[in-house]
């Protein structure tokens, strides 16, 4: 890469150079992230298939189902036992070939991997979507909005309120409110589902004003507004649970962060110049700290994708987490792998956006040595 000190910097060329570096950087990251997803998904396939043991289980299952079918069918009643066994074997063989169970696991695992990577998620073995489709794609697609709705709402709420409150608190450092937040920060050691249990206890059983679980009333209301209100009502407790478990630690860490940055020399300088406090906050505290703020926002999104199972389970929320848990219970390998592939892609996408934003927000990434 050209060292800018050797050439006088022309504004247009500087932008071009920035873009070129950004493009190189992004391509590298995309390749690296894609390889990461491939390895991660392959590991998941290995675990989900128990290193091929799931297939043995399935074979046994096929044998017993076929035998059962043949025995229950009156057409085959007058067969001799030998003939019947041959028929059973033949049918088992057909089924095994249909599911490609006769190939060695290692080959099939690469086959799975290839399909999973191209999001060709296949058909579920046991489960079906609420509309009756057996496509893994449909099953996941049906649940994804619920998860995004719940966790998106909660996390956006937590993120923006904590940054806002922290900014206010960092100015009133040492005030009773500030101390209260420090004192309450350790309560975040408990995860959201823990608070969820208490909230359910208080607001659904002791004072039954809110529903204990689910996403919408049964039966679902007909009109759009009533439906929306019902969903909103069901969201209150889970969102509150997440809020309670994360808000104090979040405020605490942002407060510390802003305090450290608001004691920097250039901030003191701005204050000494007599700039209004709002301007100091926006230009001198928030702008230089934007990169870490965005990082933590996206890291929070990453946490959002992976921490969903238990809270959804406690609140009976029909999202991706509950789906994954049910799929594992049914030993439905395609759905499990589909769920994890979606998780992995969402995570990779988040990491990628993080990289780009970092490059845009932090000038050092652009002008730093390659």
């Amino acid at each position: 890469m050209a060292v800018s000190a050797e050439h006088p910097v022309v504004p247009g060329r500087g932008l071009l150079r920035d873009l070129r570096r950004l493009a190189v950087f992004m391509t590298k990251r995309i390749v690296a992230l894609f390889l990461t997803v491939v390895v991660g998904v392959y590991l998941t396939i290995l675990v989900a298939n128990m290193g091929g043991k799931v297939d043995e289980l399935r074979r046994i299952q096929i044998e017993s189902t076929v035998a059962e079918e043949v025995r229950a069918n009156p057409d085959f009643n007058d067969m001799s036992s030998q003939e019947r066994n041959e028929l059973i074997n033949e049918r088992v063989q057909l089924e095994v070939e249909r599911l490609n169970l006769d190939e060695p696991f290692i080959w099939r695992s690469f086959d799975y991997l290839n399909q999973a990577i191209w999001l060709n998620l296949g058909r579920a073995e046991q489960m079906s979507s609420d509309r009756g489709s057996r496509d893994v794609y449909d099953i996941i697609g049906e649940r994804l909005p619920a998860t995004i709705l719940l966790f998106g709402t909660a996390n956006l709420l937590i993120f923006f309120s904590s940054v806002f409150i922290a900014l206010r608190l960092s100015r009133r450092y040492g005030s009773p409110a500030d101390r209260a937040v420090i004192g309450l920060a350790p309560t975040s050691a408990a995860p959201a589902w823990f608070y969820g249990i208490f909230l359910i206890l208080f607001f659904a059983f002791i004072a039954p004003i809110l529903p204990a679980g689910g996403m919408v009333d049964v039966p679902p209301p007909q009109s759009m507004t009533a439906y929306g209100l019902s969903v909103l009502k069901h969201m209150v407790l889970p969102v509150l649970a997440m809020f309670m478990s994360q808000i104090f630690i979040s405020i605490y860490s942002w407060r510390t962060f802003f305090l450290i940055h608001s004691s920097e020399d250039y901030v003191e300088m701005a204050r000494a110049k007599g700039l209004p406090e709002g301007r100091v906050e926006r230009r001198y505290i928030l702008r230089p700290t934007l990169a870490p703020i965005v990082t933590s926002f996206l890291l929070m999104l990453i946490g959002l994708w992976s921490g969903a199972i238990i809270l959804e389970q406690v609140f009976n929320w029909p999202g991706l987490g509950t789906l994954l848990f049910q799929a594992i219970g049914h030993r439905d390998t395609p759905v499990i792998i589909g769920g994890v592939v979606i998780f992995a892609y969402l995570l990779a996408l988040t990491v990628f956006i993080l990289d780009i934003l970092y490059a845009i927000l932090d000038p050092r990434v652009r002008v730093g040595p390659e």
Partner: protein
Amino acid sequence: MNRWTEGLYQLRQYPSAIAGALLILFLVLLSLYTVITIPYSQAIEQWRGGEIWERNPVNAGPVWADRLTGGNAPATFTVEPRDEAVESQPFKGGQRVSMPLTFDYTADGFPSELNLFLSADYENTAPFIRLTWHTPDGRTIPLGNHQITGDRRISISQDWDLQRRLGALPHVGLFAEEPTAAASQREVQAGTYRLQVDAILFEDDAELDAELVVYGQVHGIAGTDHQRRSLLLALLWGTPIALAFGLLATVGTTVTTLVIAAVGVWYRGWVDAVIQRLTEVNMILPLLPILVMVGTLYSTSIWIMLGVVILLGIFSAGIKMYRAMLLPIREAPYIEAARSYGASNGRIVMRYMIPRVLPVLIPNFVTLIPTFVFLEASLALLGLGDPSLPTWGKILNDAQDQSALYHGFFYWVLEPALLLMLTGLGFAMLGFALDRVFNPRLRSI
């Protein structure tokens, strides 16, 4: 070492640190007490349930909670015949025995169940008994005849014929003031009750023992669950298990992560690159779904779970943080000095690089413990807890399965939740205070 003692001295100025340390001390003492008084094998054996709990009531709340709220709910008690009241009349080839089981009943509220435990000792012919119930207001209610072969439990509460005659559950009807009132309006009658056991023994030296168990609505410090098991056992044993799991998982993940990060920083080149790539792969793998997968497909043994947690935690995002801390240390003059006197690579990594970042990591370490304690509880809540171990998460899972909140058994959820909360708070409070003491950047604020 001076830095550490100084840090500890400073720590004393934080009330939250002291409170946290006291909470941890309490939990550690509780674990020690539990491990010493209830041996592991005994705890596992008892938690499996069965006959040892047959004299406990089902789903009874803790006694103290009832008494604190001014209640006087019945507790479980056992009535045995007093020796002087037992009369025995011999006849040719046997004896008649009259065995009154007398007790005072003063609690508000009906018992939750009524069982009579009988054991007969005889050679050939089993004894025969007739049971009659005498209420304080002088009524007598026949409870039927039975032949007693060996040890036998007569479940008076499940006598459908009696229930039909009384028009209410037997343990309600037998203790009610107004036998004719509607079932919902019956009130408990205080006074002296008697269950008369009249037995005919067909052998001269045959013996009969009877014990009446009047099951209460409250039981012990912690109450009982749907299998009559005392929750106290699981609450007590949950403590050492939770602490051990949290501590082992934290040590396992932080120490390995730190060492690997240090090795990567020290050797650079392909070693570092491999470590970085592995970390990125690991960041893409969702921890909880994988744990759930391992739990359902392989085994729910707590040790296997611990192993997987550590395995997935080795290349965690922490490596990136440690790397950032260790990179400047690598170039520090004292490391160069160590190299020039010929220190080995291993020595430099273990003795010079790692100890340098330890103080900054101690607070992290302490705050990480409750995360794993809650992780174990989370897994148990999803039904993936170790099936044989009594843990806090297990209690919560049972409570969830039995819809404890719906049925109003709040103690069942609140007790393990309280212990979890104490653990979380204890470590978090100490960790936050440590953070302020050992992190120089925060100290000035």
